[in-house]
């Protein structure tokens, strides 16, 4: 086939392809790309709703401001703390649950459903329920529980208004809520591992731990990378729990990047400043995604 001919065929197909992809592309543009571009543009202005000042280009001034703003820096470090605690703990918990459920014991279906249930509830509902669980005073469930396990040594605390405890309280709830989702994905991954690999490993002299280390983990790598990355992104997006349970308090102990951005735009009308924050957030997510792609590419080589 001659080259021009080939090119024409390619062009024909490109047109059809564009036509077919059109609706999805339009949606993507309208609801994702356009808002992002607008936010990106606004981040370099001084836009503030209701401000008498004229709209003007201010360069990276907004970024300079937010990176010298202690509240925003606090939010950023809270996000990092949250992610670096929740992601490993939640993944380990989910992996443990998945391993237990994968042993094919009776009642597996019941437990799988139970563990997955929190995932189905909307976070707003979960948060409200956990506000009740964390209720201050001895009648609060968490206080009651801790009182029980410490044989009465526990002093009732107000978890959500305690600067030391508010963040861990949010972490606990988030792990409880998210582990089920990870567990289901890891369980699916575990069930893909051929039984024969374990049998071969057993004959090769590998005990339980060696089998886990040399068969399960490498075989589960893809699922683990996916699960860790999705959880990290969700951790950086942390907002619902904060909004409903602590409003960023006490004293900024639980504020997050998204919470700061929402505060900036909806309570102080600082559109440009909020835009700059979302751009930072976007870059963080982008970095994580890039990391995942790198790890996944390595995985493909491993095959």
């Amino acid at each position, binding site marked *: 086939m001659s080259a021009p001919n080939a090119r024409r065929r390619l062009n024909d197909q490109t047109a059809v392809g564009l036509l077919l992809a059109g609706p999805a592309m339009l949606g993507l543009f309208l609801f994702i790309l356009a808002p992002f571009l607008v936010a990106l543009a606004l981040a370099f202005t001084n836009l503030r709703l209701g401000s008498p000042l004229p709209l003007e280009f201010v360069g990276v001034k907004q970024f300079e401001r937010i990176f010298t703003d202690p509240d925003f820096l606090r939010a950023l470090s809270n996000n990092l703390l949250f992610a670096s605690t929740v992601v490993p703990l939640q993944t380990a918990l989910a992996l443990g649950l998945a391993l237990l459920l994968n042993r094919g014991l009776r009642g597996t279906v019941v437990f799988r459903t139970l563990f997955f249930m929190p995932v189905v509830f909307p976070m707003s509902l979960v948060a409200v329920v956990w506000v009740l669980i964390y209720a201050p005073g001895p009648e609060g469930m968490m206080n009651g529980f801790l009182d029980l396990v410490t044989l009465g040594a526990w002093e009732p605390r107000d978890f959500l208004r305690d600067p030391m405890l508010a963040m861990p309280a949010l972490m606990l709830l988030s792990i409880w809520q998210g582990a089920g989702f990870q567990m289901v994905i890891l369980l699916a991954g575990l069930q893909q591992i051929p039984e024969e690999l374990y*049998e071969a490993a057993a*004959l090769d*002299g590998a005990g339980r731990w060696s089998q886990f280390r040399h068969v399960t983990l490498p075989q589960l790598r893809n699922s683990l990378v996916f699960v860790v990355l999705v959880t990290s992104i969700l951790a950086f997006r942390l907002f619902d729990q904060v909004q409903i349970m602590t409003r960023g308090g006490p004293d900024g102990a639980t504020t997050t990047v998204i919470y700061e951005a929402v505060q900036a735009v909806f309570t102080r009308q600082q559109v440009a400043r909020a835009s700059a924050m979302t751009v930072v957030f976007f870059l963080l997510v982008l970095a994580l995604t890039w990391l995942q792609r790198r790890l996944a590419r390595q995985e493909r080589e491993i*095959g």
Partner: protein
Amino acid sequence: MASISFEHVSKTYPDGTRVIDGLDLEVGDGELLVLVGPSGCGKSTVLRMLAGLEDLSGGEIRIDGRVVNDLLPQRRNLSMVFQNYALYPHLTVRGNLEFPLKMKGLSRTEIDRRVRETAAMLDLDALLDRRPKALSGGQRQRVAMGRAIAREADAFLMDEPLSNLDARLRVQIRTEIAALQARLGVTTIYVTHDQVEAMTLGQRVAVMRGGRLQQVAPPWEIYQRPSNSFVAGFIGTPGMNLVRAPLDSSNGGLCVRLGDVRLTLTAQALADQPGLADRTGEDVLIGIRPEDICLAEAGATSALTATVRTAESLGHETLLHLDSPLTTVAADAPRRVPHGEPPALIAALRGHHPSRPGDAVRLQLDPADLYFFALDGEAIR
């Protein structure tokens, strides 16, 4: 190196199916025993019980005289080559060979030495840094063998290790395995459903059917003196023909009537199988190997006439599936009277014999080539 023995071993799966029934089998130190039988007869189950991957429901398995029933697979020091190799996909060939050695806790220098030796023996040097995915079927097979060898285990267990390979490669690797086993002298149990592999590979062959051992003997004896009609029909391609016919006395000796042909048994046959004389006047099963049937010479006075059902030419031989006046029965169910068409009488003729369905042929048999079985299929001895 080790000897292995099964004593009254039985296996019933939780769903109640009895898969192995009273298995007694001895495998000598350094021996290559082939376990052969049709699909589903329990060969893999036997191997898996020996490896410790499956519990026993009864009986004992001993390795070097020691009962291993309750020993974990990790502690039995056996190596196994799986049907689809079960290589570790995330490890390179080197990693796969090293894995069992690392699990043993060998030193780095010892591991390197063994990997080098194994790779040289199996011609794997060029592949050491590849992953299993990047290997051909035959190469994967060699890696699986290598992993088993590098271990220096007490015995090799191989479960249909060649069944994923093409016919040519199978023949080649079959020969290599036999040579390797002879060189290493490691006790080996080789499972296959392919009777050609069994005949060519085994020092002894154990034929199994429905969870029961039918016969254990060297290949030639299995072929020459099958203990029952099942073994007779299973070994050989195509399998032995079985014909139901009466045993008559004829002036002092014995003869069988096959259609219009009377064959007088040889003195040798009567001496080898004294049981025959007791059955004078009874119906017995006559076994006829397809390769023992030949075309009658032009002037022959008594010949068996048959018509061709189908003919298959393999080049070096021609297989005729024949309709004959004989009462043919199936080798695996000799007592059942077949519904509809009886099994064809099969003749394997040397060379090329063009023939078409409906052609009439005249056949000749040598009474010295006949096998005799009672109606229940047991060989008459």
